[in-house]
C-alpha cells in the first residue's frame, strides 16, 4: 500500500458513489438504533428499490442530536430529518428530487452552526464498517505521510506544535507524553488506547469508536511510529458491544489492506493492535489500573512514579492515550500542528466533544472549539431547558467533576477555567440540571457512584467515600446536623489529598463544588428540614434527637 494505491481506492469509492443521484444516510448509532433506525433502514432500502431511483442507503455513525432520533440525512441536499420512523421511508424516497418532506424536516441550523467538527468530521457521513469509505475521506493518508515523509521526531513535533492535550480529562500535553515515551529506552514499547469510558452520562468515546473506528486505529498507528512501539492494545469496555464489533472489523480490514501488520506500506515499521475487553470497573479508566487489567491482574491503581511512559505494561515504556486524543491525530498530521493550534483558547487548543445530557432540549453529541462559553453550548447548541424550567447548574467531568452554577455560564470552556471553578474538563460528559434537581441529592448520587466504583485499595477512598455517602444520605433525609457539614468538609480534604489515584483524589469534587455554590441547599435540608427542589423525601420521620441538637 502506498499513497497512489490509497488514492485509487478513494477514487473508486467516489466513482461508485457517483452512480447514485441521492444518498440517504441513516444514523445507526445506539440512540437512533434503539428508536428504530434498523427497521427504518430496511424500509428505505425496499422503498428505494421499488421507486427505481438511484438511491444509496447508507448506515452511518452518530450525527449528533440523539434526542431527535432516528435521524436521516439526504445528500447532496443535506436535508436532515428527525424522528423518522419506518413508515416514513416511502415518503422520503418519493420526495427525492422533489423537495424535502416538510413534516419531518428539522431545523437545527443553530445547533450545527456553532460546532466545529474535527473528531466527528466523518461521523454521520461514512459507513463505519467500510474501510474504503474512510479512505475516501482522506483516511490513512496521515499514516502513510508520516511513515514515508516524516521522521518520528517530526511527527512528535507536529503534535507538540498543535498544543493537543489529553482528552481523557487530565489535559496532559500529548506531545510531551509522546516525547517521553519516545526517549525511554528499550526496544519493546506499547501503545494503549483507553476506551474505558465509564462516567455516568458520557458517550463521546463510544460514538467515536462506533462511528469512525479507523480514525482511532490510524491515530494509534501514527503514535506507535512516533514513539517506536510495535504493539498496541485498545482497552474497551464489554458494555460497548457495537464498538467492539466495529473495532474488530476495522482491525481486520486494516490488516487486509496492509495498514497494520509487518512492514506497513513497504517500510520497516511493524505494528498491530489487539482488543482487550474491560469488565466495567470505572477505576480501570485510571491508567495504572487499566494496565494491570490488561496484564490480567485485578484492576487496582499503583502509585506513580514510575509513570507508564517509563514503566508501564509488563514493565515496558507505554504510551496511553484516550480515544478522542487518538482521533485528533490524523487531522493534525494531515493539516499540520499550526492548523490545530489556531482553534481553541490560549492554553487549550482544538475542539472538544461533549455528551450533552440531562435537562436540555437537544441531548446528544456536540463538538465545539475550546474556549466556547458554557452558555453557548447549553442555550444555543443545546437549545435550552425544556418545559419552562430554569437552569440551575451544569455538571462537567462526571463523578470527578463539579457543578458549575448558572451564574457562571459565561465562563469559557477550557482546562484551566473549569479547574478554577472547582470542576474539571473530564472526558466530556456534560449533565445539565434545572430547578427540579436537588444539589445535595446530586452530590450524593456521584459519591455513591465513587463509593461503589472505588477499588478498595487505599483507605481514604475506600472508607472515606463510604462515610461521605452516609453523611450525605443523612442530610438528604433531613437528619443531618451542621456538625455533619463540617465533618463532610474534613472528609473531603482527606479523600482529595490522601487518596492513591485520580478516582479518590477527584471524588469529593461534586460535594465540594455543591458546598461552594449551593451551600444554602445543604442548610435548607439541615436547619429547615426542607428540600428546595422537592426531590428529597424529608417528611419521612426526622429523629427527635436531631431536633434537640438544633434547639
Amino acid at each position, binding site marked *: 500500500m502506498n499513497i497512489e494505491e490509497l488514492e485509487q481506492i478513494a477514487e473508486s469509492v467516489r466513482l461508485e458513489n457517483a452512480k447514485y443521484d441521492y444518498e440517504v444516510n441513516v444514523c445507526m448509532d445506539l440512540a437512533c438504533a434503539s428508536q428504530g433506525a434498523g427497521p427504518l433502514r430496511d424500509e428505505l432500502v425496499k422503498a428505494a428499490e421499488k421507486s427505481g431511483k438511484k438511491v444509496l442507503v447508507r448506515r452511518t455513525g452518530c450525527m449528533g442530536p440523539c434526542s431527535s432520533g432516528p435521524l436521516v440525512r439526504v445528500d447532496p441536499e443535506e436535508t436532515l430529518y428527525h424522528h423518522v420512523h419506518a413508515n416514513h421511508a416511502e415518503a422520503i424516497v418519493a420526495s427525492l428530487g422533489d423537495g424535502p418532506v416538510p413534516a419531518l424536516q428539522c431545523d437545527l441550523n443553530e445547533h450545527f452552526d456553532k460546532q466545529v467538527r474535527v473528531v466527528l468530521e466523518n461521523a454521520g457521513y461514512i459507513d463505519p464498517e467500510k474501510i474504503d469509505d474512510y479512505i475516501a475521506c482522506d483516511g490513512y493518508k496521515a499514516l502513510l505521510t508520516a511513515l514515508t515523509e516524516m521522521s518520528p521526531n517530526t511527527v512528535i513535533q507536529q503534535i507538540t506544535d498543535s498544543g493537543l492535550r489529553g482528552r481523557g480529562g487530565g489535559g496532559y500535553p500529548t506531545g510531551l507524553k509522546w516525547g517521553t515515551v519516545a526517549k525511554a529506552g528499550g526496544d519493546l514499547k506499547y501503545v494503549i488506547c483507553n476506551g474505558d469510558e465509564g462516567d455516568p452520562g458520557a458517550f463521546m468515546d463510544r460514538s467515536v469508536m462506533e462511528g469512525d473506528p479507523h480514525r482511532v486505529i490510524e491515530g494509534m498507528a501514527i503514535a506507535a511510529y512516533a514513539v517506536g512501539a510495535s504493539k498496541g492494545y485498545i482497552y474497551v469496555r464489554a458494555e460497548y458491544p457495537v464498538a467492539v464489533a466495529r473495532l474488530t472489523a476495522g482491525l481486520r480490514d486494516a490488516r487486509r489492506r496492509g495498514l497494520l501488520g509487518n512492514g506497513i506500506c513497504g517500510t520497516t515499521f511493524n505494528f498491530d493492535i489487539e482488543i482487550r475487553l474491560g469488565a466495567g470497573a470505572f477505576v480501570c479508566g485510571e491508567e495504572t489500573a487499566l494496565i494491570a487489567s490488561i496484564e490480567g491482574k485485578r484492576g487496582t491503581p499503583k502509585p506513580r512514579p514510575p509513570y507508564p511512559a517509563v514503566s508501564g505494561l509488563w514493565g515496558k515504556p507505554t504510551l496511553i492515550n484516550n480515544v478522542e486524543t487518538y482521533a485528533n491525530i490524523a487531522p493534525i498530521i494531515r493539516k499540520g500542528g499550526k492548523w490545530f493550534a489556531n482553534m481553541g483558547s490560549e492554553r487549550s487548543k482544538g475542539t472538544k466533544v461533549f455528551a450533552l445530557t440531562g435537562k436540555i432540549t437537544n441531548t446528544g453529541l456536540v463538538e465545539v472549539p475550546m474556549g466556547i462559553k458554557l452558555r453557548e453550548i447549553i442555550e444555543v447548541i443545546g437549545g435550552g431547558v425544556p418545559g419552562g424550567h430554569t437552569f440551575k447548574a451544569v455538571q462537567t467531568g462526571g463523578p470527578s467533576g463539579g457543578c458549575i452554577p448558572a451564574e457562571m455560564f459565561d465562563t469559557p470552556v477550557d482546562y484551566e477555567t473549569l479547574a478554577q471553578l472547582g470542576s474539571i474538563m473530564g472526558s466530556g460528559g456534560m449533565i445539565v440540571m434545572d430547578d427540579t434537581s436537588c444539589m445535595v441529592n446530586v452530590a450524593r448520587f456521584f459519591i455513591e457512584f465513587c463509593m461503589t466504583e472505588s477499588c*478498595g485499595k487505599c483507605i481514604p477512598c475506600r472508607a472515606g467515600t463510604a462515610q461521605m455517602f452516609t453523611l450525605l444520605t443523612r442530610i438528604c433525609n433531613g437528619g443531618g446536623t451542621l456538625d455533619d457539614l463540617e465533618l463532610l468538609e474534613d472528609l473531603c480534604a482527606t479523600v482529595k489529598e490522601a487518596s492513591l489515584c485520580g478516582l479518590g483524589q477527584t471524588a469529593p469534587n461534586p460535594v465540594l463544588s455543591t458546598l461552594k455554590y449551593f451551600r444554602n441547599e445543604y442548610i435548607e435540608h439541615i436547619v429547615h428540614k426542607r428540600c428546595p427542589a422537592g426531590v428529597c423525601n424529608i417528611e419521612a420521620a426526622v429523629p427527635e434527637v436531631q431536633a434537640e441538637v438544633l434547639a
Partner: protein
Amino acid sequence: MSEPVGVKTLQINGEEVSARSGQTILEVAREHDIDIPTLCHLEGLSDVGACRLCLVEIKGSNKLLPACVTTVFEGMEVSTHTERLQKHRHMILELLFAERNHVCSVCVANGHCELQSLAQDQGLTHISLPYRNPELTVDASLERFTVDHNRCILCTRCVRVCAEIEGAHVWDVMGRGINSTVITDLNDPWGSSSCTRCGKCVQVCPTGALFDKSKVGSDHPKYPDFLPYLNLMREAR
C-alpha cells in the same frame, strides 16, 4: 552489572541527611530515627502505597507522596509531620476504626496491635465519624489459625507474604471498595483451601484479624521481624 551507588543528600524536617540513590524516603527516615507511621508497609514485603499514613510533603510538589515508594533525589526537602499531614493521618485512622468492628478490649491482639499503637501515638481518643458496624464473618475452619474479618484493615500484608515469600498465593482480595475482603483461594473456607499452614500471614498481620488459636486471651504478640532475615538468608544462598 549493577549501577554504581550514588550518594544523595536531602533534608528531612530541616535536618540534612545522606542516602544511597534508589532508597525510599521511608528507609532514609528510619535510618535517621525519624518516625513516619505506616501500616501496609512491612520490611521484607513489596510496597503498595495503600494505607496513605506515610504520606509526606515534598517542597515544590503540591501532591502528598507516600514515603514507602518515593525514592530520594538530590536536594529533596521532605516534611514528615506538618499539621496538614497529621490531620490526614488522624482522619485515616478514624476511618479505619469506623470502617469495621475494632473493639480493643475484647481483641486477641490487645496490646500487640499496630493499629492500636498508631492510634495511641497519634493521640486518637475518640471517633467523630459514624461507626459502620458491618456484619462480617469469622473463619475458624483451619485447625491452627482464625481470620476475623471484623478486625481486618485490608493492608494486604497477608496477600503479599503468601505470594511473595511463601509462594503459595492463597490469600487475595475479593470485591470492590467498602465491600473488599481478603479471601483464601477462590473464597473457599481457609480450612479447605490450598493453604500450606506456614503461619507467615498470621505473624505479619498488624491487627487481630489473623490469629493463632492456641494462644488464649489477649496474649497474642506477633513476630514479623523474621521477614528481612529470611530474605537475607535467601539472597545469600
